[in-house]
């Protein structure tokens, strides 16, 4: 049963990944990307990493891909224009691709794992047959590697502030609703009752 599920998820992951780069419509490509994430989550479940599977769906499918789809739908892409430069840039693209491929092969050929890795690590991997992988991940990330985790959080914060700084523009002359002043307004500030004598006006 597990083997059947594995082949199903694996085939669909690869097939939808191919469709991501070959679909003509960009929105279709994003939808295939989402389907690909979904099947990858299925593979995680088969590996027993159910926490990672759910987080993959919540974060990537539920939030990141929504914003991605949002942007792609808003863009007005002219497909004929996009395809015009295809043949002209094809040789350059092939050269870059081959160079990258060769580099990756070199990196993997010379990759040696540190033989003392088990002793250098700050914490051993918790025994997965005794605790759930949510607890295992929690104790690794938030107890043993908490400083590395905080540092990566700060880096992401800096990136976010940078993105906001680049796109934010302070506009003048915009009348914004300030809820606090509206709530703080009292009856005496707004209404005055005037006794008007009949036939005289104010």
């Amino acid at each position: 049963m597990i083997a059947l599920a594995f082949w199903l998820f694996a085939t669909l992951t690869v097939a939808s990944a191919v469709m991501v780069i070959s679909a003509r419509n960009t929105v279709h490509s994003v939808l295939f990307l989402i389907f690909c994430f979904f099947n990858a989550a299925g593979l995680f479940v088969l590996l027993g990493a159910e926490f990672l599977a759910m987080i993959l769906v919540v974060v990537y499918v539920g939030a990141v891909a929504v914003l991605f789809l949002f942007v792609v739908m808003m863009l007005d892409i002219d497909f004929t224009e996009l395809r015009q430069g295809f043949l002209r840039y094809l040789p350059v693209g092939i050269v870059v691709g081959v160079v990258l491929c060769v580099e990756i092969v070199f990196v993997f050929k010379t990759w040696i794992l540190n033989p003392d890795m088990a002793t250098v690590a700050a914490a051993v991997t918790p025994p997965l047959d005794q605790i759930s992988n949510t607890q295992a991940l929690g104790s690794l990330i938030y107890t043993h590697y908490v400083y590395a985790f905080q540092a990566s959080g700060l880096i992401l914060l800096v990136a976010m502030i940078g993105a906001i700084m680049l796109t934010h523009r302070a506009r003048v002359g915009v009348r914004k609703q300030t809820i606090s002043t509206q709530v703080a307004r009292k009856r005496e500030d707004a209404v005055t009752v005037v006794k008007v004598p009949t036939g005289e006006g104010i």
Partner: protein
Amino acid sequence: MANLLNNYLLPLIIIVLEILAIVVPLLVAVAYLTYFERKVLAAAQLRKGPNVVGPFGLLQPLADGLKLMMKETVIPSGANRVVFIAAPILTFTLSLIAWAVIPIQAGVVLADINVGILYLFAISSLGVYGIIMAGWSSNSKYAFLGALRSAAQMVSYEVSMGFVIVTVLLCAGSLNLSAIVNSQAGSYGLLNWYWLPLLPMFVVFFISVLAETNRSPFDLPEGESELVAGFFVEYSAMTFALFFLGEYGNMILMSAMTSILFLGGWLSPLPFAPFTWIPGFVWLFAKIAFVLFCFLWVRATFPRFRYDQLMRLGWKVFLPLSLGWLVLTAGVLTAIRTWSGTGG
């Protein structure tokens, strides 16, 4: 052959039967939720509501369903056909598959997985795709605007909902839904449930759920006064019915989630003899019905939010509040653990 039968066919048949045992009552519940909604709204507006078809109008949902099935499915010529058809199917499927992890009674659950609450959260965060796909593939500006609004709204309120769920998880110490319900059991009955110690989070969660299911007062995606009918303006007959069923199914699902996280799931409100004899699923259904009534009550009471106010409430009020309460809860739990020394 016997091997194949025992290993594959028999479990498959059992699983299908279990799924049907959940889906069929759910669909009946969805049908009668529409009846319940019309009756409650009618009572709020001093009208009678449906009362012609069948005794007390009880056959009205069936008549409506039959009407929707008999109508013609119109697909706009400019629409992206595959995505257009897939969107309602996706919405409807998502509202059904989430029920796999809902514990109906102690030990009665289709899939008792370790990360049940994360699964629910993941499925509810996928709900936005049905709406976006519908809005985009309709090739209509009203549908598209409705879809864009809805995507922004659902993503915004998901953030604070996530923090509320994490707060509950901290108190329960588990991601399993049955364990969350069991951790709320105690000798004080309904005063032990999480709605009381986490009262502000309960309120934030309920309001976020209204926004997440696009219910009034946050029903901007379908705001009929400016967008005709929002994202499903081009849908008709069965495709529309699937959206409708999916939306109401989601309402029931979110009510079940609220009942399990904050109202003690299948636990009896008064933990002594005559009340504990009543089976747990009756209590769960009563709680779901109560939360659903609150949904309808809100709809009958409040006008629709303006879009910028909706965003302000989500990002500037709920997000800091839930984040602050999360830190506070974690601090209090650590303090209790340190002082009592029990390690609980």
